[in-house]
């Protein structure tokens, strides 16, 4: 029994030392960690329209523009912003647009089209029953008002500025070839008579793409008139990401805010280690905080107390925080179905449909 007790004593000794260190750790390290963690909460703020970003300058009066309050984030985002064209807004009425009456259903779909790889025109015609012949869109029998939340939409235009190679220029998307024309988001909106809100996040390659310069980003397409345009520049992780939001209305004045968002898959190795894999958590927190900020601004509560701004970390998740109904869709790029950012969004939007629990990385 000597060896047993000896080992036992050793363990006790180690345990005792660990226990002492643990106490020190609890006293020192945990408050530090909590303090650091709290510092990671990202409050978003309205961004001035006259900053060094062409999109913001030209659309500042129309678009409510929000971004992180950290200067380092803003500097990086500005460098990326200068390589893209201004946002595109088209809210002119089209003859085929049906009104959204109270009680009627509305179709909302979200899709990362990966540039021109997704046949958006074919989807609209086949699934949403809207034929988009050039200049003469015609709805079919099953047509209903719809909203499309698009990620990685692309625009080919001369208004996309020329740019020098650099870290803010991303390579062209490698699109899978498909039959049919490769039509950009602006021309799809025109061809189908749809309202459009498009905010480019980044350049789609430095080179001319089929004789045109391209940028890419999130977009909202709808058969309904869009209003109350909001662009939210998310905290910078790996690429500039701009979530877009707009509002659609029923005929009796009820409103629905729709949001199209795209988060980064991963950041750099250094950020992975230093931030504890918080890429999407940070961007999701930024988006939620910006949406809360929008609500507070709309309600004239911008000077409200820190308690009101604790969202989405407030414990009382049953309290409605949105003054109008809000629907967020997008490509969150989560690594698993149960990620922190998903949990935060479910807490912020408790009326969301439950998850199906299916993994997205397995063939169905």
């Amino acid at each position, binding site marked *: *029994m*000597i060896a047993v007790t000896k*080992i036992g004593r050793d363990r006790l000794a180690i345990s005792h030392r660990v226990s002492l260190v643990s106490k020190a750790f609890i006293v020192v390290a945990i408050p530090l960690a909590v303090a650091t963690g709290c510092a990671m909460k990202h409050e978003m703020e309205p961004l001035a329209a006259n900053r060094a970003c062409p999109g913001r300058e030209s659309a500042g009066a129309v678009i409510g523009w929000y971004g992180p309050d950290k200067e380092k984030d803003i500097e990086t985002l500005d460098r990326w912003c200068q390589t893209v064209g201004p946002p595109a807004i088209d809210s002119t009425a089209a003859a085929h647009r049906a009104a959204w009456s109270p009680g009627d259903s509305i179709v909302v779909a979200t899709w990362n089209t990966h540039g021109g790889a997704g046949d958006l025109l074919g989807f609209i015609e086949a699934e949403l029953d809207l034929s988009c012949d050039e200049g003469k869109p015609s709805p079919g029998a099953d047509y209903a008002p719809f909203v499309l939340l698009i990620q990685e939409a692309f625009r080919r235009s001369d208004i996309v500025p020329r740019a020098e190679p650099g870290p803010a220029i*991303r390579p062209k998307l490698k699109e899978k070839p498909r039959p049919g024309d490769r039509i950009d988001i602006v021309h799809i909106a025109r061809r189908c008579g749809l309202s459009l809100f498009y905010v480019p996040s980044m350049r789609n390659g430095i080179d001319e793409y089929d004789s045109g310069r391209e940028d890419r980003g999130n977009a909202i397409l709808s058969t309904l008139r869009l209003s109350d345009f909001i662009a939210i520049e998310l905290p910078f992780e790996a690429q500039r990401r701009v979530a877009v939001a707009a509002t659609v209305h029923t005929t009796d004045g009820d409103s629905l805010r729709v949001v199209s968002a795209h988060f980064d898959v991963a950041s750099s190795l*250094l950020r992975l280690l230093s*931030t*504890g894999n918080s890429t999407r958590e940070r961007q999701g927190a930024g988006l939620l905080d910006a949406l809360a900020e929008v609500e507070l601004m709309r309600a004239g509560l911008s000077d409200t107390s820190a308690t009101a701004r604790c969202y989405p970390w407030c414990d009382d998740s049953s309290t409605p925080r949105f003054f109008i109904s809000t629907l967020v869709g997008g490509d969150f790029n989560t*690594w698993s179905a149960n990620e922190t950012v998903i949990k935060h969004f479910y807490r912020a939007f408790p009326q969301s449909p439950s998850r199906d629990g299916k*993994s997205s990385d397995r063939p169905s």
Partner: protein
Amino acid sequence: MLLSTTSALNAYTRRTSLPVLFIAGALCLQAGPARAQQSQTSDGAKLAGGALGLYSGAVLGTLGGLIPCSQTYAGSQCVRVTGAAGAVVGLAAGIHLGGVDEDAVSNSARGATYGFLIGSAAGFALKESVQRFGWGDVVAGGLIGAGIGASAKGAIIGLGAGSLLGLALYWTIPSFDLPNAVGVALMGMTVGGIGSWVVKGVEAEPVDPTGQPLIVSVTLPF
């Protein structure tokens, strides 16, 4: 069943009594005779052992927490806690190891150096192949490599065991995502790496060479 040698009893006790969390780490350490280690030790060795253990534990704790923590509300704050917990265990085990086996600390330092070089090389390869990676990631690769290299044997065996377990769970549980399998592999590496610090310290404990012969009666359930 009679166990008549101290070493056998030692081995049996390790196999049966070490916490489950340290199984992977224990696997890398052969259940050989307890070494009557008489290495010269000093305060410097304790300091070096503590520093290496602290660093290695922090890196391994952080890596092990990355994916499991990403599925909690706490998220990155949880990773900070696992990193700090790893650092605390590594610090305690490293100081203890430095006090009983200076050579083991030297070996860990050598492993950390090799790990830094290998990690930096991997980081450089990433920098050259992925646009968003820069020199900071080369350094980060080196830092990760050093943390793993300081307890390479346990970390590698833990990684292997964790990978097998992760894949088994992935194949058998439909809702278990592939990233979760990677997470289990990383957790295995963490457990193996930090566990090996603890086990090395236990194993290197000097044993009285004049100890008495020992006969112990142990009943094993079969």
